[in-house]
């Protein structure tokens, strides 16, 4: 804490001493209060938090003990350096994903207080050391240094090494957050955070692959040869300094500590600059917002004149905003009334709304992945049912994803026909993507598995399942809607609605599967009676059956939607 040390010494002699009292205790208390009040919100949240903390601490403890078990092993230094680097990387990217979760990360909340950046940095750094993350880092990095510490000198070096790693990690996280505050508090930044769920999932898979590659002796050997470079990347030098102390290479140890401290100093300097910039410059988001509006303001007096021009301008430049091509390809009767605008809005949302986009991308990716796994592991072609199933599930909780904007639907929906068309628009928007996708995935898998003979029945079953899920999804959306939190990227339901989600997903899938039974029975019967030549019939039967089930359930659900408009609004607006 180089830069911080100068102010940290100022205790609380009060104003009379000429210097303002230290704000460190205030920030520490603030952090503790924020933690405590976060837990006070609901019992479920408290339980979740406690379980999460226990698990992550057990994990950290396991990591630490694992590292200690490596003590004396040839690979211990490589493992210690790698672990430290992973910790550092985790801290660096964490604010990008969890910014919204921690109010104390956002320095702009403090701009109105008469605080100078330097005491602010000390206070923020100290308060950041409180929490589960720092404890996790402390446990893991202690394990790392114990793994490489041999002898008194090394043990003496281990204590500052752990402290340096911890403070560097926390400062890194804070500096990254401060440098990116503008981005992270902007709408685009929040959109980015919503997509981070995907990144985290993919990252976890990559980490998994990496870990299994490393756990072989060959992998660790390769890691050891890389260590020569890795140990100089902060915050690893601090840990490697302990190993240098164990070997008696005190000069190297000194250089490594100096390297770590210099990096920390640079970090704090970067953080200081970002903070200063944040605290003195205005929020650029409002400046941007004011631009076009301000430019329009003087035109007010000329409104009458511009009214005349408006018609011409609108017709000249706005033709492109009319409709998306897909809707035009469908029969006019099918997309009559509000169906077409509803479909267009759904498509706009799939592209522009990060949550919808992430859900669709996940459905598409996993729906492709599972048949692929079947191909790789020479599994069954029936894995292709996942493609249609996962996309069909997206029909569930249609109105929850609208959030309180559902009032615009409620305010314009008057007749039963309107309700049918509203539901049809949503179903068609999904089907237009799901039907071709299922066909392509199933055909591809059948070709790769050399099971083209089973293609018609698989595709027929898929289409029947998709139709059943679209139908039951529409009904569940009307009967069991739940609110989707708009600001929490990781939750798919607002607190206290877990039961409803389970009811939707589990009950819906079961009902969908039950509705498919006739097609399944036909397939099984044809197999059992050795009528393999007639199995192609499952495809047209399944397709027609799926279409009929979906449209029948939509028609049956429509009057219920009309009756329940205020009730649905009351539920989905609760975010």
């Amino acid at each position, binding site marked *: 804490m180089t830069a911080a040390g100068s102010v940290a010494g100022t205790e609380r002699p009060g104003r009379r001493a000429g210097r303002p009292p230290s704000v460190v205790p205030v920030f520490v208390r603030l952090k503790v209060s924020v933690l405590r009040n976060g837990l006070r919100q609901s019992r479920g949240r408290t339980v979740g938090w406690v379980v999460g903390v226990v698990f992550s601490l057990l994990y950290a403890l396991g990591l630490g003990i694992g590292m200690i078990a490596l003590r004396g092993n040839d690979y211990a230094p490589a493992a210690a350096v790698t672990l430290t680097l992973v910790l550092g990387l985790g801290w660096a990217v964490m604010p990008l994903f969890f910014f919204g979760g921690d109010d104390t990360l956002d320095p702009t909340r403090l701009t109105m207080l008469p605080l100078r950046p330097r005491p602010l940095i000390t206070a923020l750094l100290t308060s950041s050391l409180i929490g589960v993350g720092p404890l996790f880092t402390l446990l893991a990095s202690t394990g790392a240094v114990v793994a490489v510490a041999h002898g008194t000198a090394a043990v003496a070096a281990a204590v500052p090494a752990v402290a340096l790693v911890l403070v560097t990690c926390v400062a890194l996280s804070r500096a990254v957050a401060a440098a990116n505050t503008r981005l992270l508090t902007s*709408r685009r930044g929040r959109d980015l955070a919503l997509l981070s769920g995907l990144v985290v999932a993919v990252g976890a898979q990559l980490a998994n692959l990496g870990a299994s590659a490393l756990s072989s002796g060959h992998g660790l050997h390769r890691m050891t040869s890389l260590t020569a470079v890795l140990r100089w990347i902060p915050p690893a030098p601090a840990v490697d300094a302990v190993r240098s102390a164990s070997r008696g290479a005190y000069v190297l140890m000194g250089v490594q500590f100096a390297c770590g401290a210099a990096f920390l100093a640079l970090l704090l300097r970067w953080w200081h600059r970002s903070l200063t910039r944040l605290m003195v410059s205005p929020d650029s988001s*409002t400046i941007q*917002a*004011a631009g*076009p*509006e301000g*430019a*329009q*303001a003087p*035109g*007010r007096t000329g*409104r009458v004149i*511009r*009214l005349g*021009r*408006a*018609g011409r*301008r*609108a*017709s000249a430049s*706005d033709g492109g*905003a*009319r409709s998306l091509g897909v809707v035009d390809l469908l029969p006019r009767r099918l997309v009559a*009334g*509000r169906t*077409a*605008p*509803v479909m*267009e*809005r759904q498509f*706009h*949302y799939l592209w*522009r*709304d990060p949550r919808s986009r992430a859900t669709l991308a996940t459905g598409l990716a996993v729906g492709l992945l599972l048949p692929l796994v079947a191909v790789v592991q020479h599994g069954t072609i029936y894995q292709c049912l996942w493609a249609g199933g996962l996309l069909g599930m997206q029909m569930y909780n249609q109105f929850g994803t*609208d*959030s*309180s*904007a559902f*009032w*615009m*639907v*409620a*305010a*314009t*929906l*008057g*007749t039963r026909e309107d309700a049918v068309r509203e539901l049809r628009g949503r179903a068609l928007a999904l089907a237009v993507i799901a039907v071709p996708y299922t066909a392509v995935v199933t055909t591809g898998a059948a070709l790769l598995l050399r099971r083209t003979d089973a293609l018609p029945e698989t595709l027929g079953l898929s289409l029947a399942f998709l139709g059943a899920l679209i139908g039951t999804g529409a009904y569940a959306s009307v009967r069991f809607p739940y609110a989707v939190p708009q600001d929490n990227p990781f939750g798919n339901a607002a607190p206290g609605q877990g039961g409803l989600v389970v009811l939707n997903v589990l009950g819906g899938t079961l009902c969908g599967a039950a509705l498919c039974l006739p097609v399944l029975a036909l397939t099984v019967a044809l197999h059992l009676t050795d009528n393999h030549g007639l199995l192609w019939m499952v495809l047209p039967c399944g397709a027609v059956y799926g279409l009929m089930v979906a449209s029948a359930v939509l028609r049956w659900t429509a009057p219920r939607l*009309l009756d329940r*408009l*205020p*009730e649905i*609004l*009351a539920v989905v*607006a609760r975010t």
Partner: protein
Amino acid sequence: MDGSQGSGGTTRGETARLEPYYGGSARTDDDGGDGPPPAVRVRGLWKRFGEQAAVAGIDLEVPAGRFVGLVGPNGAGKTTTLSMVTGLLRPDDGAVQIVGRDVWADPVAVKSRIGVLPEGLRLFERLTGRELLVYTGRLRGLPIAEVERRTGRLLDVLDLSGARHKLVVDYSTGMRKKIGLAAALLHNPEVLFLDEPFEGVDPVSAQVIRGVLERYTATGGTVVFSSHVMELVESLCDWVAVMAGGRIVASGPLADVRGTAPTLQDAFLALVGAERGGGQDLDWLGRGGR
């Protein structure tokens, strides 16, 4: 309904409603009115959230063609009332008629005759301003060419032409209110319900909104808007209803509700039982000390 005095059916709002609510002159309203039906007629409207009654028996009759202000302190039940009147919230009890048609029995007729700008509810914000209006117009069943014509005009009049290709999620508060107002006006409704249309709106946008609303009422439309800014209501409205604690404590033409009080603010404070002044205990405040 416990003795609330909505405007009497015979005089339709021409009499003052200055008596405090608990005054208890329970008048019977004659429902078989002569002449055109009132813009809004509310009878015995109730809404409870748990133990608390947010709206506790409202009777109100709003004459057509007026600029009506629904005023009251925070938590008085204005938003709950407007939500029930516009069909977005189901009342526990009571009846609501818009231009003589029941909101819950005849939703088609009512929904096509009213425009709504709710407070605290989102729009479909991932659409651009222009897309939002076109989408709304088509949901309302207007022909596409007409929707596009009206959209262009509304965007222009509301000074939103420059931002028509921007996503609504990136709009400022004033711009959001204006695009919401445009969406509410698009189908040329007979009655317009606006919940806090001026809240958080800059003076320039407020003036634009005001101009549009004045023009709308001049051509026979009825505007019902809620606010707690008395100066605004006094300068805009010719008819007001005062809410407090989930009830209507007074309603009628502005001059009658104001009565002998110098301003509507004073009349309002007297009606809701608050006093001017306050802050006498803050004797340390001011005089440059710390």
